[in-house]
């Protein structure tokens, strides 16, 4: 009882900076996820393209080089802590871009998310049966047209749960960006706790807030996912039995 009272009084005293922290956390994580998604489409898409046999040699070499760079990018950003990435990029590129910590933080978060998204998108693309891609190519669509019109829409739909998961991860993980003194939720928490010496209560409140934010995020993502798949499955008739039969056979003669 005492604990709850204390928590309430902390919230009352600090609600402004808490709200500010929530705002920054949300802005960072939502934008970071969106930009990361775009990066992921781009990098994952390029990595998944298979050049036609009749493309000139220099293009094939270039493609190989780009694939290699893409792989390096993904390995580096997935394989090191984002906190170090933030520090490193902010300070090493500060003289070049003259950027604020907030912009640097958003950039690092986007690029970091992009690395995960690239792999998510790539596996989403690989989950699409080759037959559709062949059919698209066989009727004259180019590699790029096939990607944008046939592959991406399905890949994004298939990968949507993993894509959405990145948002939830980012809401929590953007907290490490406080190393750049960004006034996001964790930074605010730390300074509140630093002045009232109520570490347990203050961090408990913050944990609840994170839980609430991620809860709302997954609720919204669920709704979006339902909408997207619902528009696909308005089964009228006959299909089912036959469909099962073909699937059971494996349908893989080719």
């Amino acid at each position, binding site marked *: 009882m005492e604990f709850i009272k204390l928590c309430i009084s902390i919230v009352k005293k600090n609600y402004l900076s808490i709200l500010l922290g929530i705002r920054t956390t949300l802005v960072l994580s939502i934008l970071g996820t969106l930009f990361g998604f775009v990066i992921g489409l781009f990098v994952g898409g390029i990595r998944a393209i298979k050049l*036609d*046999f*009749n493309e000139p040699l220099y293009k094939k070499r270039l493609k190989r080089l780009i694939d290699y760079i893409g792989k390096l990018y993904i390995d580096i950003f997935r394989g090191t802590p984002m906190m170090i990435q933030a520090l490193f990029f902010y300070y090493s590129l500060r003289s070049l871009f003259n950027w604020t910590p907030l912009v640097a933080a958003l950039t690092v978060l986007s690029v970091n998310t992009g690395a995960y998204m690239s792999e998510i998108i790539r596996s989403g693309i690989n989950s699409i*049966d080759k*037959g*559709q891609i*062949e*059919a*698209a*190519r*066989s*009727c*004259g*669509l*180019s590699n790029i*047209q096939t990607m944008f*019109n*046939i592959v991406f*829409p*399905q890949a994004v*739909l298939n990968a949507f749960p993993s894509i959405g998961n990145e948002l939830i991860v980012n809401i929590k993980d953007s907290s490490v960006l406080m190393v750049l003194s960004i006034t996001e939720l964790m930074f605010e928490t730390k300074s509140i706790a630093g002045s009232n010496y109520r570490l347990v209560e203050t961090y408990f409140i913050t944990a609840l807030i994170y839980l609430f934010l991620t809860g709302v995020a997954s609720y919204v993502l669920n709704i979006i996912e339902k909408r997207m798949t619902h528009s*696909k*499955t*308005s*089964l*009228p*008739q*006959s*299909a089912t039995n*036959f*469909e099962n*039969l*073909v699937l059971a*056979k494996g*349908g893989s*003669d*080719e």
Partner: protein
Amino acid sequence: MNKVIEFKNVYKSFGSLKVLQGVDFEINKGEIVCLLGSSGCGKSTSLRMINLLEQKDSGDIIVEGKSVDEIKDINQYRAKVAMVFQQFNLFKNLDVLSNCTIALRKALKINKKEAEEIAINNLKKVGMENFIHAKSDTLSGGQKQRVAIARMLSLNPDILLFDEPTSALDPEMVNEVLNVIKSLTHENRTMVIVTHEMNFAKEVANRIIFMDQGKVIENCSPEEFFTNPKTERAKAFLANSNIH
């Protein structure tokens, strides 16, 4: 007669597996050719080479007087030699109409309205005009294959390629698709059909090309092939298929 497709001593391997070992044949304009042979003999590979989905190792393939090695715009070329697949391969994210219009709009740069008119005309031909807004995964196999045929026809191709169009279908749906293909044989287009439906081949083909182990070993009229096959392999093949 003018030749539209010529295979000249075509070889193809997948790794150490020799699939085509000197394939030679010619197909004339407007001919309906059934490509027969036992499983794995290289029928699909040959057909896919015409559409450039596979690349030959050596030899030459000449389509409408031009070697496929000299084709500059591969996408425009492919639209003229369209293909129907065993597994239908409809685009799952698009409805029936868009399945038929997408290549018209993106590859052939035809505007939306015109593309839709063309597509609807062809959907009528295959009896699917009442399903234009259905998503592909709500259709039965036979319906899917009919849409795939309409998708191909919408491109107005010079050469129609069919790779076992009925092999993935339930028996009761085979005929609806075969009938659609039969109806196309009066349009004076060149058609190359890989099939295991012998009665169908006998009925619609002008010529039979029989392959065995990566080579063409019989190339003759259907009457001759079905009544008087020359090779032992063809005799054995025919003995194993039910024909009436």
